[in-house]
């Protein structure tokens, strides 16, 4: 029988790539974004929700189980970024970034883990970023939100281990997605200089990490942040 995955932020970018990748492997995929999607597949079910809306998250996680069975894998990918000097950063940026990146990750994790705990466990993959360990200039709030996600990942890994739920995070380098398309080239080049492997990431780099963390043999790996590009 097909396994069920839930992926947040599937309308485009990395979330979309992960959804298509898992669908090609025979998973049933529930996905969400704030807007509609043109991703059409017989095993894909899209929910138009905001991951920071508690009631909507609860309803979505329950609906997926009703329609397709318990969720075995959660990919907590939805995220927003905003680049600005800290002195020029409006308070609205804080609300927007922390609501989606931290509150959203927490709510989806909590509701999915409740379901997993009753149904034999599962795998949770959160998304951090190399912005956190590199303390990237211009990304104070984004990096801070990803540091919060890392802390949440490590603590949740401890609390959920006895329920056969692993919780890890992937920390990608910049990938060519909408999230970085407005970043000036010289900023990206300066960032790449800080990476031991000096290139942009690709979607395949991230899919490889997802495959690794979802492998049955990875059941002894939890609470880890898997950075790409040699960053640590």
């Amino acid at each position, binding site marked *: 029988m097909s396994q069920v995955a839930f992926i947040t932020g599937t309308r485009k970018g990395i979330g979309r790539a992960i959804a298509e990748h898992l669908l090609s492997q025979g998973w049933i995929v529930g996905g969400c974004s704030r807007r509609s999607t043109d991703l059409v597949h017989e095993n894909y079910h899209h929910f138009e929700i905001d991951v920071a809306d*508690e009631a909507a998250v*609860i*309803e979505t996680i*329950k609906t997926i189980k009703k329609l397709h069975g318990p969720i075995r894998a959660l990919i907590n990918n939805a995220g927003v970024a905003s680049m600005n000097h800290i002195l020029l950063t409006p308070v609205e940026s804080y609300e927007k970034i922390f609501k989606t990146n931290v509150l959203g990750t927490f709510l989806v994790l909590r509701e999915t883990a*409740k*379901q997993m*705990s*009753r149904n034999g466990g599962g795998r949770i993959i959160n998304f951090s970023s190399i912005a956190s360990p590199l303390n990237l200039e211009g990304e104070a709030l984004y990096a801070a939100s990803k540091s919060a996600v890392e802390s949440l990942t490590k603590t949740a890994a401890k609390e959920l281990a006895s329920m056969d739920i692993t919780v890890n995070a992937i920390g990608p380098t910049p990938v060519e997605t909408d999230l970085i398309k407005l970043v000036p080239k010289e900023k990206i080049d300066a960032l790449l200089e800080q990476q031991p492997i000096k290139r942009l990431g690709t979607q395949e780099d991230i899919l490889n990490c997802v495959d690794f963390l979802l492998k049955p043999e990875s059941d002894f790996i939890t609470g880890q942040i898997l950075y790409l590009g040699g960053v640590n």
Partner: protein
Amino acid sequence: MPLERNTVLELVQTILRELGEDLEIKELSATDEQTRLFGSRSALDSMGLVNLITDIEEQLSDEHDIHITLASQSAMSRTHSPFRKVGSCVNYIMELIEAADAQNPS
């Protein structure tokens, strides 16, 4: 039809019995309103209580289409935890169901 208090009590007792079997705690095989769920004289440890709460939420949702979240800020900050005894836990669940009904009258 609104859920009767007795139905909720039976649901909680059934979950406790199943948890007792899973966790090998024989005190949970027969519980009553006075059975302690929380604190030093409880048969459940903190993880057992977490399992109880998530099981109650799930069964109310799956079997009765009632969607409530038991672990709220107000529950956690009360002087006397609603989870201290089976009876107080059932009272608290009834409160939440009534509040949800008042918010979304069918």
